[in-house]
């Protein structure tokens, strides 16, 4: 119900009693300001952690091999383990339902030359699924496909910065470059959210690399993207199972940490998730504590204000004010002050957070601190409710006082 006269009464009451209005507003504004800053800073921390893992898909499991550190089944320590295509196929066939993406990797260093420019880069020979596991963004052309692998095509996909190094502003797509004496066609140019090194990488079909570099079926690493439907615990169990099965297949002692290593992002995620979870619980406790302190503050002030105005209410009642009109006036005034003050606190808080921006990222791991709209809406609703309660309870009591008693009050 919009009652212009009621609002006029309220604005007059607020503007003629500035100190008391500012006092009650300040409590709320300050509580909301602290609340906003607290949530913003924690969100900033959370952003930094998310960023740290954003480079690669969150559901990755990496399998790497090195030398054995324990004798097993009569085999000696120090035996060099080598992953091969059949190990890749083993993973692919055995865990099909749990795998979303799968790729092998072979690492090489290559020298790329084109006309009079040349430089050294890291090469990764991979399967097409690698694109999803590394979150590679294809800017031009296309990524490797199954046909490239089947045909052992001499094609490469190069990083954005290689293109800049070698071609500058000129088009690179479709050009042929000389890589360690062999001519390759550039079929795609990509970018990556990770660091600059990620954009100085050359991708080529794993089969092409195996044919040209040693003519064997060796691979350096297997990357698995597990099915995102697995929860973290299931994903961790899955990683452990791959490790056990591969160790058994490759005759590695089950406790040998050196010969075969499985790095599972799920484990890191779980750690970060737990850490952030605890942090959020803490923030919610502290944040709601701050809000409650603000609410108690405004309730106290409203009780005082209403006591101070008891006589005024008595006069109003003698002149014909109904109790509901007194309660309505006080509640509306209280809601108005809390909402306005809360909005001010919120705006100032978000403004401060935007000032902080990314400046604390280096030293304090706080990136882009901000509050989500859900939290803003929640805090606003809390405020309006707080204003309602803080105004209603004492106002109801004041409205119940007999006018004769109220008039006597000073």
């Amino acid at each position, binding site marked *: 119900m919009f009652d212009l006269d009621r609002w006029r009464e309220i604005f007059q009451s607020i503007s*003629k009693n500035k100190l008391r209005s500012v006092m009650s507003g300040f409590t709320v504004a300050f509580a909301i300001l602290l609340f906003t800053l607290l949530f913003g800073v924690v969100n900033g921390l959370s952003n930094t952690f998310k960023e740290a893992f954003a480079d690669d898909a969150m559901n990755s499991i990496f399998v790497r091999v090195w030398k054995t550190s324990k004798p097993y089944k009569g085999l000696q320590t120090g035996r060099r383990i080598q992953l091969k295509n059949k190990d890749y196929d083993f993973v692919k066939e055995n865990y099909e339902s749990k795998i979303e993406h799968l790729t092998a990797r072979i690492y090489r260093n290559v020298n790329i030359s084109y006309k009079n420019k040349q430089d050294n880069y890291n090469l990764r020979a991979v399967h097409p699924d690698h694109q999803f596991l590394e979150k590679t963004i294809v800017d031009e052309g296309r990524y490797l496909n199954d046909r490239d692998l089947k045909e052992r095509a001499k094609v490469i996909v190069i990083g954005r910065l290689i293109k800049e190094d070698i071609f500058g502003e000129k088009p690179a797509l479709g050009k042929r470059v000389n890589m360690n004496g062999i001519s390759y066609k550039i079929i795609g140019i990509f970018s990556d959210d990770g660091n600059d090194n990620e954009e100085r990488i050359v991708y080529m079909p794993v089969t092409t690399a195996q044919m040209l570099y040693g003519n064997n079926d060796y691979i350096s690493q297997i990357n698995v993207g597990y099915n995102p439907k697995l929860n973290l615990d299931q994903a961790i169990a899955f990683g452990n199972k791959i490790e056990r099965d591969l160790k058994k297949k490759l005759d590695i002692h089950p406790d040998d940490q050196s010969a075969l290593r499985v790095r599972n992002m799920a484990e890191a995620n779980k750690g970060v998730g737990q850490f952030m979870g605890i942090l959020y619980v803490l923030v919610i406790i502290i944040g709601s504590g701050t809000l409650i302190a603000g609410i108690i503050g405004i309730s106290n002030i409203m009780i005082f204000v209403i006591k101070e105005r008891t006589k005024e209410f*008595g*006069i*109003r009642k*003698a002149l*014909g*004010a*109904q109790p509901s009109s007194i309660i309505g006036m006080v509640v509306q005034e209280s809601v108005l002050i809390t909402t306005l003050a809360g909005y001010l606190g919120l705006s100032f808080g978000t403004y401060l957070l935007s000032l902080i921006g990314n400046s604390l990222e280096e030293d304090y791991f706080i990136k882009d601190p901000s509050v989500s709209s859900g939290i803003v809406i929640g805090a606003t609703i809390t405020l309006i409710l707080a204003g309602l309660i803080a105004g209603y309870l004492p106002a109801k009591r004041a409205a119940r006082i*007999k006018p004769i008693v109220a008039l006597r009050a000073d």
Partner: protein
Amino acid sequence: MIEIKNLHKSYPIGKDSLHVLKGIDLHIREGEFVSIMGSSGSGKSTLLNIVGLLDEHDEGDYYLNGQLIKNLNEKKAAILRNKFLGFVFQSFNLISYKTALENVALPLYYKGVSRRERLKTAMEYLDKVGLKDWANHLPSELSGGQKQRVAIARALVTKPKVVLADEPTGALDSTTTDSVMDLLKDINDEGMTVFVITHEEEVAAQTKRVVRLKDGVIISDELTKKATQSA
């Protein structure tokens, strides 16, 4: 206009109760100018509060404008006060942050009158009490007599049936007392029922009927010279 039969009122004080009004019978007709005299503790203020619906009686009947007043809730009492009664208090009871004009207009706000109409009517009544030029002053900028005239204008603005004045001159010096009483007399001359409470003989002498109260009972009820003069 006001008819009271065998009215009793007690206030609880600790475990005991103080019997303030011990069976009052009083009949005030429309257009009368009545004063209630009595020393403090005689029950005169209690009587006015009951008549003014600011307090409830324990026993007896009270008819206001022919309507039996019984078991009123706050809302009904507020509506009746707004409709039938105008109050003038000893301590003026103006709202300190509102101007004279806004104070006078306030009862009309509770009556549901539009703002424009409210301010126009309030200005007429301020003019009537001779304070048109002070309309936009706050109560703190007015003298005692001026404040009481604003309060009288506020009491009249809803055109009530009865104006109830509780020691209207209690806080004023003798000259301003006279001007306030003259004002009340003028109002009465226009036909309004005026009901004054006082402990000052001079004030009572300017009304037309004096009811004397002592220890919660009426000890005398007689017309004054003024009444016989004007009659």
